């Protein structure tokens, strides 16, 4: 396996690399049960959290992951207003070079920003979500979460139904891609306005929950409805969304009877994507996803090699 500098999108990864990260994450998760949760792996290394978009959850997850590997972590929350017009993101990165970061974790509302930064720096760049483009660590943690339930070869051939905003979701793009690479079947369901024609052909489209249930999915993956991202109207109301595309209590009965797993990248909109009852459903994996996020991100930090360490 060739050493890899950056994690920008799932598309770039080989099956071997994906399996390596999933395998590496496992002992890290074991570690959480111990009283001493730290390992010296990245002692003396500097990790920079560069978040242009507010995100407490993902940023904290990376921060905890880096600290458990004994790295020094600096959080840089760059609010949009502080980015002076005329100063490009690369100017900022040049400034940050002085901090000698070994790993730069980037979140930005514009697609492709991590790719741009990665070309410009010797540090390892980890994409923590860019625009509608990609969220590869989310995809890895989702794959890890599913692998826990379907160990080894059991995962191949399983069916995951992704529900919601396929158009604007970087999670849908990255998670569906990793599932394809792990031979998991992917179905999609959502409002016609959020179901782009340009989606990959391997995403099987359903017109309704009933139709999707007939497909007999093993997992239902609900996407967060991003009200704040949409300048225009894509569905009449949150109430109508819930009625047609939400995991309602009526649908939860079917889900429970069939033992279907439920996932969501968080944070959830209660009463829109799902109900309170779903949150306490015994096969709801949302909390597992959060915990696995830390272990997976530790594995990613361990795996990537900044340019300084090549050769």
């Amino acid at each position: 396996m060739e050493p890899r500098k950056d994690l920008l999108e799932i598309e770039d990864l080989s099956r071997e690399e994906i399996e390596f990260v999933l395998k590496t994450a496992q002992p890290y998760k074991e570690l959480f049960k111990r009283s001493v949760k730290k390992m010296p792996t990245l002692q003396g290394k500097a990790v920079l959290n560069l978040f242009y978009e507010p995100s407490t959850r993902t940023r904290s997850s990376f921060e905890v992951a880096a600290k458990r590997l004994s790295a020094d972590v600096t959080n840089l929350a760059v609010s949009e207003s502080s980015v002076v017009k005329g100063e490009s993101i690369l100017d900022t990165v040049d400034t940050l070079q002085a901090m000698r970061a070994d790993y730069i974790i980037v979140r930005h509302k514009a697609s492709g920003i991590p790719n741009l930064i990665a070309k410009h720096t010797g540090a390892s760049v980890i994409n923590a979500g860019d625009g509608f483009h990609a969220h590869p660590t989310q995809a890895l943690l989702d794959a890890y979460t599913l692998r826990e339930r379907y160990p080894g070869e059991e995962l191949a051939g399983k069916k995951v139904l992704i529900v919601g905003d396929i158009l604007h979701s970087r999670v849908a793009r990255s998670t569906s891609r990793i599932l394809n690479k792990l031979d998991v079947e992917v179905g999609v369901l959502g409002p016609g306005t959020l179901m782009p024609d340009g989606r990959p052909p391997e995403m099987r489209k359903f017109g309704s929950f009933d139709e999707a249930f007939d497909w007999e999915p093993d997992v239902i993956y609900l996407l967060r409805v991003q009200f704040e991202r949409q300048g225009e109207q894509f569905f009449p109301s949150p109430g109508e969304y819930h009625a047609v595309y939400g995991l309602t209590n009526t649908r939860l009965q079917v889900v429970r009877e069939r033992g279907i797993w439920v996932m969501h990248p968080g944070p959830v909109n209660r009463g829109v994507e799902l109900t309170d009852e779903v949150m306490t459903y015994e096969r709801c994996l949302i909390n597992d996803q959060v915990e696995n996020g830390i272990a997976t991100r530790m594995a990613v930090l361990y795996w990537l090699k900044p340019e300084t360490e090549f050769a």
Partner: protein
Amino acid sequence: MRLFKDAEIAAAGSRRLTKADVLVEGGRISRVEETMAVPEGAEVIDCAGRILLPGMFDAHVHLREPGRNDKETIRTGTEAAINGGVTGLVAMPNTSPAIDSGGLVRSVLDIARRTARIPVQVAGAITKGREGKEMASIAGMVGAGVRMITDDGSPVRNPQMLRRAMEYAREFGLLIASHCETMELSGSGAMNEGRVSYKLGIPGIPAISEEICIERDIAIARQTGCRLHIQHVTTARGMEIIRRAKEDGVPVSCEVAPHHLIFNETDIGSYDSNYKMNPPLRTADDNAALLQGLIDGVFDLIATDHAPHTAFEKHQQDFGNAPFGVTGLETALPSLYQFFIKPGKFDWGVLVEHYSARPRILLGLDPVEIAAGNAAELVLFDPAGQSVFTKEFMRSKASNTPFLNQPIDGQVELVVVGDEILLSRQEGEH
């Protein structure tokens, strides 16, 4: 007096090259003969093995002056044109301020007279400030020499505004050029909407954004009888709409840009903003359809939409924020040679017809085909040469082209306008 000896002459619409000697006297072509004795006192230019073309004419160029001289000036833009074998062009009016009055047209033409070595035509705006609200001073611009008006860069959003402008402009014999785009459908789009935009997570510009506006503008041309020119057509369907309108007798012409023939959305790769322009690169199927349309004669012109931007804007920003546009004046001729003429997809006659003869006819300018009596605007092209588009090679201020640092087959070796040699890459200076 200058004799171009043993040249292979390309002519509009002609499938083959004609070997001949061309004599230029007093800035005009005086004789074209299969072979002639060297007249006394004539400078002989050996053209053996090279193609002699009439100067190219680019009907769609952004020179950026006034207002954005950091991107390009009339001087650097016209030098870029010469470097690419282009000896005439139309400068678009989306400068700052927009060229929307006779006074502004005169001031731009005045800068051109002082700084440019080739003639510059100026297109005026259709509406004041290109804002789509009030008509620009059309008669004033016509008086200053304008032959084409356009709000290029944007459509005239209000169809009633466009209708009135076309009814008014018709009486002046003006050509209205349309950038066809339905802004509400384009939204914040930055590339073609489809597989690739989905994968990259970049908002898309759907083909219908362009096609609906083409339909609309053709309907208005049909109604008003005003001559309409559709700029930079990119989709197969858009082209078919125009083909049908022409068959119906609507006074419409259209152009295709080299980049829309050569590249498609997949070339964007990992967010390469050198491939970001508006209208955007479409699909491989569109490439093929546009090429066939050019060969079939649906397209009247090839025009580059030369759109220079600073390195900062294009290469230091993310794809979504980088401005639309690609340069083209210097790369058009060699790239069309390499991609289409050399492999036999079309012949020199197609290129000369669409990139030299017809744009001049459309604008009512004198022809420069290589024939006795015409003004001498000559380009000697060496098909065995090679051009490498480094920043040093290019004369444009900008380098936002996919061909940056790339070698292309063929080289513009000599550019002559009248008695003057504007460019020479021949051994030994003239």
